[in-house]
Every structure is written in structure tokens, then in C-alpha cells.
């Protein structure tokens, strides 16, 4: 898809040959090679994450995405978005998977706005992407937690570990965003129109970082309880098997005296065999009832 330009008169995205430093552009990394103006700036930025020159500012920010993993289901993935802002233009460089989201959601209703406003929208959207992904991860974590109720293996627990790690990655990415924005704010003159936008984005970054960090910490702190839940599942099965073992032992134990090679009580009674079976199974049944009342059989 290369390079796209938003044509204000037509109100649509059109394919452009290269970046022209006037208007709103979306570029994939391959298209940058055809834009000599951008290539050098982006080279600086990829090394330092932030590059400022006169009124131009270039930032490389982390963006949180969701993707499907064959082993672990829905997981978070960090991508990077490079923004090159001048008073007359905004070039957004991102991987191809990000472009539809940018066009539809992030820039959907602001395409006619000024470049400063667009910059703020993209900065805030990249910050909010972490919160959105965190919410999805938490929902998935809660589903996995319920699945643990009957789990014996480690599949769910391993997925929970991956989700917790992803939440940690989101916090780290937000901190990285905060550092970049703080540096950008320091490098921008107070009277620049970009200054209040960066300031607002930095405040919002702090707020979102606090929230995502809180979620991460709280969910991480209860991970050990999940281990307990899985162990409890295994213990429950062992408990029920043991009570069955005890139940099977009881008739043998109670009937054993009648195996002895001695004169036995009631040995001449015609129905002794039936009587003994009724006696041993009766005692076993009474024990089973008592065990059932005390939750020995509950799974």
C-alpha cells in the first residue's frame, strides 16, 4: 500500500508517489525509501526515538495491538508508530496492519482538522491503545481464571503467565512513551503550538500508566492463588480416589475374621453368608453416608 495522502477536497485517501511535506500522509516502512526528505529524519529517530529540528518534531512511539497466538490465544503485541510533524504536515509511519486502524478509528472524524490537532489525536490514541489492550487482556484473564476451576494441567496457568507478562509489557511501553513525551516537551519551546499538545498527552500518559500499572500489580499479586486452585483440583481427585479406596477396604476388613480356621460364631446358620454380606456392606454404606455428609466425595 506504500504511501497514502488524505485528499481534503475529495474527502478520501489517495495513493501518493511520495511524501510532499504538505498534508496528512500514511506510510509503510517500504515507502520511506522513496521519500528522501523523510528517510534521514526517520533514521535519526529510529536511533534516538525522538528527533527535533526547528519546528519539526519526529517521535517513535510504542503502540499496543492484539494478535492471535496458536499456543496462547489472544496476546498483546507491541508495534511502533513514527510521527513526523511539521506545521503544515503530519506523516505517520507504521506497519501495514496499523494503517486501517489509523484511517478508520484514530483519524476517522478529524481528517479535516489542523495538523496539531491530528498530532494530538494520534498521540492520545497511541496511549489509549495500551488501555484498550489491557482491558481485553483482563477479560481474557478472567475467562482463563474461570477455566481453572476444573483444570488439572498447566495450560491455563501458562496462558495466565503470558497475559500477566503482556500486562507488564504494556506498563513498560507506556513508561517508554512517557520518557519520549517528556524529552519532546523539553526540546519544544514553550510558545510553540505543539507544546500544550505534548503537555496534555504527557498528563494523559501518566494517568493511563497509573491505571494499567495498578491493574498489572493487582492481577500479578493474585497469581499464586491460581497455583493453589490447580493444586486443589488435583487434591480433590486424589481425595475422592482415597475415599473409594477406604470404602473398598472396609468390607475386606470386616469380613476377615470369618476367614479364620477356627470354630466361627453362627457357622451352622444356613443364611450366614447372606448375613455376613449384609453386615459388611451395611457398615460400609453407613461409612459412605457419613463421608458424603462431610464432603469426602465432593468434586
Amino acid at each position: 500500500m506504500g504511501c497514502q495522502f488524505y485528499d481534503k477536497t475529495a474527502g478520501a485517501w489517495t495513493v501518493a508517489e511520495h511524501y510532499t511535506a504538505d498534508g496528512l500522509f500514511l506510510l509503510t516502512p517500504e515507502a520511506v525509501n522513496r521519500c528522501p526528505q523523510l528517510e534521514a529524519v526517520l533514521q535519526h529517530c529510529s536511533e534516538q526515538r525522538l528527533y527535533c529540528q526547528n519546528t519539526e518534531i519526529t517521535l517513535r512511539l510504542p503502540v499496543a495491538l492484539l494478535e492471535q497466538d496458536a499456543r496462547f490465544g489472544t496476546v498483546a503485541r507491541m508495534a511502533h508508530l513514527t510521527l513526523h510533524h511539521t506545521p503544515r504536515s503530519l506523516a505517520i509511519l507504521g506497519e501495514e496492519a496499523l494503517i486501517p486502524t489509523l484511517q478508520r478509528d484514530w483519524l476517522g472524524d478529524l481528517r479535516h482538522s489542523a495538523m496539531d490537532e491530528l498530532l494530538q489525536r494520534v498521540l492520545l490514541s497511541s496511549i489509549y491503545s495500551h488501555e484498550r489492550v489491557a482491558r481485553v487482556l483482563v477479560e481474557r484473564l478472567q475467562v482463563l481464571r474461570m477455566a481453572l476451576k476444573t483444570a488439572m494441567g498447566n495450560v491455563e496457568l501458562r496462558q495466565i503467565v503470558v497475559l500477566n507478562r503482556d500486562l507488564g509489557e504494556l506498563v513498560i511501553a507506556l513508561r517508554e512513551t512517557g520518557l519520549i513525551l517528556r524529552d519532546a516537551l523539553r526540546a519544544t519551546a514553550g510558545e510553540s503550538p505543539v507544546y500544550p499538545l505534548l503537555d496534555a498527552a504527557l498528563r494523559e500518559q501518566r494517568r493511563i500508566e497509573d491505571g494499567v500499572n495498578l491493574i498489572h500489580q493487582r492481577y500479578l499479586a493474585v497469581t499464586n492463588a491460581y497455583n493453589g486452585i490447580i493444586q486443589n483440583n488435583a487434591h480433590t481427585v486424589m481425595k475422592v480416589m482415597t475415599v473409594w479406596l477406604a470404602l473398598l477396604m472396609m468390607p475386606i476388613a470386616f469380613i476377615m475374621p470369618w476367614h479364620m480356621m477356627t470354630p466361627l460364631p453362627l457357622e451352622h446358620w444356613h443364611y450366614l453368608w447372606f448375613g455376613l454380606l449384609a453386615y459388611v456392606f451395611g457398615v460400609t454404606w453407613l461409612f459412605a453416608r457419613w463421608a458424603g455428609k462431610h464432603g469426602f466425595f465432593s468434586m
Partner: protein
Amino acid sequence: MMRIIRDSLLSGNANRRSWMALTDPSTSELTQAAATLDIPESFLRKRLEGEASRPLIKEERLISLQFQVPMPEAGVAGQFTLVPLSLYFVPGYFVTLAEREIPFLNRLIDPQKPRKRWELVLRIIAEVTRNYLPTARSVTREMTVVERDLRQAQRHDVVYRGLDINDRLLALDLGLLQLEYVVSEIAHFLPAGDTFLMELHEDTRVELSQVRDQVDSDQATLSELLESYAYVVHNNVNHLFKFMAALIILATIPLFIPGAVAMNVPLGPLPHWRYGFAAVTGGLVLVEMLTAGVFYRMGWLKLD
């Protein structure tokens, strides 16, 4: 529902302003409200849709604030809903927008005693903060019930109840975090010379900080305890294992005492001794009782 109550509060320069209360508004009411206020409808709609946005937005003609109000569920202790409440200042109007009726707004916004706009906002925030406290307490109180059930629990249901309480406290903590952010941002809007408002702001901030500390502390305690709960449940199950293992040992003794007299070999006088059965069975009962007594004293035959 849309209501407009005239002359309900005072602007910064003491002009009277109307209060527009939007409670779960329909699409047509939103359109009508946006036209009356002369602001884009999306400003109102997006707040209702819960789309991620800044809790405090200042535009040329508008200041907008949003925070979550905890509303207890009727008849269910410890359950609540966080209702987003948005406040707007637009020329001539003060707007409240929420999906549910917020009861204390009618009490705080009184046309008979109109308050200044920032005083009103701070009083609303103070009231919301005060709502967080009993909500958090009622959630934490559930822990007592969980701890009571823990004594007999053999399954992890108690741990799940603890996890649910942990989630609810986290939701309250996140709501308080947003409120804290709004309060800190409001400081930039307050008139510098107004000591009354400054004091009110400081009081609200301190009260909010205290409530948040309490929720944080409750949640930290619960997170730490949940692991212990899991161990208590393990221990309860282990008690059963111990009890059943002791029972199996007791059931094994008859296998070798009467078993010794059941061998298909010459057994001496026993097969013809009249009291053979009584003697061996009596010995068996004695050994069983002694073993059971030892097990009981060692606590292996106790269930709790």
C-alpha cells in the same frame, strides 16, 4: 430524560446559569441538548459510549469533566455499579450527563441557594468520594463471610469469592484514580485568590487520598491473603487425606491378624479351640483400639 432548571448556579462572574440534567437520554434528546448547548453531539455521545478520552477536557467554549460514581445494587450487599458522570460547562449552562439518576445532584444543585460553579463541582466530587467509602467497606466486609467459610472449605470457591472481591476493589481503586486525576487538574482552573475554594479543593483532595489509601490497603491485604486462603483450603483437604490414610491403616490390620489364622497350613490347636475366634477377634479389636487411640492422640483421626 432531559430536564432544564433555570438559575441553578452561578458562573465565575456571578451570572446565573441553568442546569441541564441528562439522564439516560434518548437519541433525539441528545440531538436537542447538543442544539441547545451549541456543541457537537459527539461530545455528549462519546462520553455515554465510554470511549477512552481525557477525564478533563478544555475547549474554547466548553469544559468537560468525567468520573465514576459508585451506585450500590439494591438488596445485594457489596455489589455496585460504577456509573460514569459527565459534567459540562458551556456558556449559559451547567450540564450533567449520566446513564442513571444520580440522587445527590438534586440536593447539591439548589436554585434557592445557587453555588459558584467550581464550588459545586468540588462538592459533587466530595460527595462522590464519600460514596466510595461505604461501598469499599461493604465489599471488604464480605471478606468476613469468606473467612468464616474458609474453616470448612475443601474447594476453591472461597478463593474465587476472594478474587471477585479483589476485582471489585480494583474497579473502585481505578475509579478513585480517575477522580484523583480530575481533582488535581481542577486546581489549574480555580481562581487563585479564592481561599474558600482553595481550602475546599484541599479538603476534597485529602479526603480522596484517604479513601484511596484505604481501598489500596484493603486490596493489598486481600491479595496477600488470597494465597493463604488457598493454603487453608489445601490444609482442609490434607486433613481428609490424613484421616482417610489412618482409616485405611486401621482397615489393613484385620488383613494380617485374622489373615494369620486363615492360612492353609497346620495351625496347631487353633482350628479346634472353642474360644479361638473370640481370642483372635478380641486381640484384633484390642490392637485396633490401641492403634486408633495412638492415631487420635497424634491428631490423625481428627477432621479439624
